[in-house]
């Protein structure tokens, strides 16, 4: 018995839940969940002090499987629920798992305002460029020209650059990686949880069964290979000629700055108000 290898991820999964999980073959959500678990494990956090909140969508099914305080909420509203939790219990780590449609379409308003407040949430945005759970409709991140069930002639809309959006809204930690770069992803997740302020990690993920099939991307391995070959680290961007950067996924921590954090600022406000009230006597 002693020789049977133990997988750290298994210790964090809810053993009484249905496995194999709900996601299609080759879907990156499992890889991302694994990276989140390894990040939590390597930080040696008490899992009672972590809340994972999600919205609606494929990636938002993650909380069911992980043995933390978990919450599966309304479409687009994960960040709003997380705001309530974090503000009432500022000492808890709050992770938000959300998708591209969930977070930037219906939940776009909550994203930009949480980023503006710089509330200490770790938002892991799984960007698979499509609405997978409802069967492949186009999302705000569906690339121009890509096929979706509601864009059968190719999407004519420009797509969001989520990281730029978050930076523009004031997020103090913004990073991008892909589902293939799994160790990098784990490190970014860990860094985001250590970062005091709003952090967003955009994980470019593969949806081979729906997005891949509609757009003839091949199977999961092919899509993962594309992530590997078609992405460059941010540090290399300046060194390469522009034509080699064009159309590539740029990975890396795109912004990391320490700014006043909202729940801490509110704690200061409470302290100030209570002190001045006490002094007026």
């Amino acid at each position, binding site marked *: 018995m002693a020789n049977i290898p133990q997988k750290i991820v298994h210790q964090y999964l809810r053993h009484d839940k249905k496995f194999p999980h709900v996601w299609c073959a080759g879907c990156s959500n499992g890889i991302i969940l694994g990276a989140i678990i390894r990040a939590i494990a390597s930080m040696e956090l008490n899992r*009672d*002090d972590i809340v994972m909140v999600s919205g609606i969508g494929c990636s938002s099914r993650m909380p069911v499987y992980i043995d933390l305080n978990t919450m599966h909420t*309304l479409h687009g509203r994960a960040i709003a*629920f997380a705001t309530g939790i974090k503000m009432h219990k500022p000492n808890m780590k709050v992770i938000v798992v959300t998708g591209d449609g969930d977070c930037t379409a219906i939940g776009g308003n909550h994203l930009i305002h949480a980023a503006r407040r710089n509330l200490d949430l770790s938002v892991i945005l799984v960007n698979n460029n499509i609405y997978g759970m409802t069967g492949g409709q186009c999302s705000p991140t569906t690339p121009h020209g890509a096929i979706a069930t509601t864009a059968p002639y190719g999407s004519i809309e420009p797509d969001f650059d989520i990281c730029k959006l978050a930076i523009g809204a004031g997020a103090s930690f913004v990073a991008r990686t892909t589902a293939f770069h799994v160790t990098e992803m784990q490190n970014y997740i860990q860094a985001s949880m250590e970062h005091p302020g709003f952090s967003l990690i955009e994980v470019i993920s593969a949806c081979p069964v729906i997005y891949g099939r509609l757009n003839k991307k091949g199977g999961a391995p092919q899509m993962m290979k594309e992530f590997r070959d078609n992405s460059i680290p941010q540090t290399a961007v300046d060194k390469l000629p522009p034509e080699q950067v064009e159309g590539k996924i740029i990975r890396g921590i795109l912004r990391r700055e320490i700014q006043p954090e909202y729940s801490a600022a509110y704690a200061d406000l409470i302290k100030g108000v*209570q002190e001045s009230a006490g002094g007026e006597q």
Partner: protein
Amino acid sequence: MLKKTTSNSTKAKTPKAETLKKKSSAKKAASKIVELESNLERKTIIMQGNEAVAYGALDAGVNFFAGYPITPSTEVAEILSAELPKRGGVFIQMEDEIASICAIVGASLAGAKSLTATSGPGFSLMQEGIGFAKITETPCVVVNVQRMGPSTGMPTSPAQGDIMQSRWGSHGDSPAIVLYPDSVKESYELTIRAVNLAEKYRTCVILLMDEVIGHMRESVRLPDMANVRVINRIKPTVPPHWYKHYDENQKYLSPLASFGEGYRFHVTGLTHDAHGFPTNKAGEAGEMMDRLRKKITYNIRDLVQIESHQMDDAKIAIFAAGITARSAKAAIAMARHEGIKVGLLRPLTIWPFPDDAVRKMLRDVDTVIVPELNQGQLIHEIRRLTKDKSESDVLSIRKVNGDLITPNEILRKIKEVI
């Protein structure tokens, strides 16, 4: 059950020492609340309905408010933004009403007593979140100071158009607890009751207010804090592995753990089993829906409050809620002066509808008049309950133009009947 009661049945009670301590610390603060709490025994002061809601919330132990400005409910947020930090509570102005309801549900699951206040358009936006609070059985309170609609309507004019929305507004058909005050003092009392019921029954309780009551100032004497009964949620007393987020017992009231207490439960808006994990088995889904219904129907005696005003010898009954009931009382005074025997039945708990009480009271009268500031909502509930009466014996007064129904209009209707 038929008599109006001001105190709530309760088991839990705030410890007295804590109450007193809270008082003395609040005394130091220079604010409106000085007038409220300068004496251990509260004196008569002048207060607005919305203020009464805010102070009711504070006295009930609310320590989390998330909201979005909307006329005519804004005063609630303004007061709480000043008062909550003094008590270590959280006030946050969210980006919209949807975010507000979500934030209070999140905070409640983290252990807060939470409340939000809004009006018609915001209430419409909150409906999905209210449904989430109901299916996940998360305590929270939504105050809806009704204004005239539809859509933007008349923001500073009264209407009672959200009576049915507060019951049926959220998709997917779930029971509701909705309270409806008719005065500033009752706004205070029912806010406390709403928070208490939310905690006890683990659901989203709605407090319906009229714009006039929200903005009206009245002389009130609030009860001393020592007389305010506060109910807190039942906490689990089993080890984490045995905890069921939706436990069953005879009264359908189950303990509620908070995030961060070691129970590590899962909450989902999907149909779920007793542990809170999603299920699509018909048996478990049916059980869950039954639970949501039964915790209201089995406890209806605890939930229903109704005021009976001069009904003992009445031949004509007026059924009205909120501000319209006050017009009715004025009309009754005038009618009685002329020797007409009229009485009033007023629900303080409008949902669940006080079926039994209404049926019983209406049995003895010949005619029922239902005045309301909408195009006819309560009238249908009354018609449902008075099957033995003909159409002409159940009369409606409807008015939706931004003005109140005046006592004279009701009196005129009374005189039409006799």
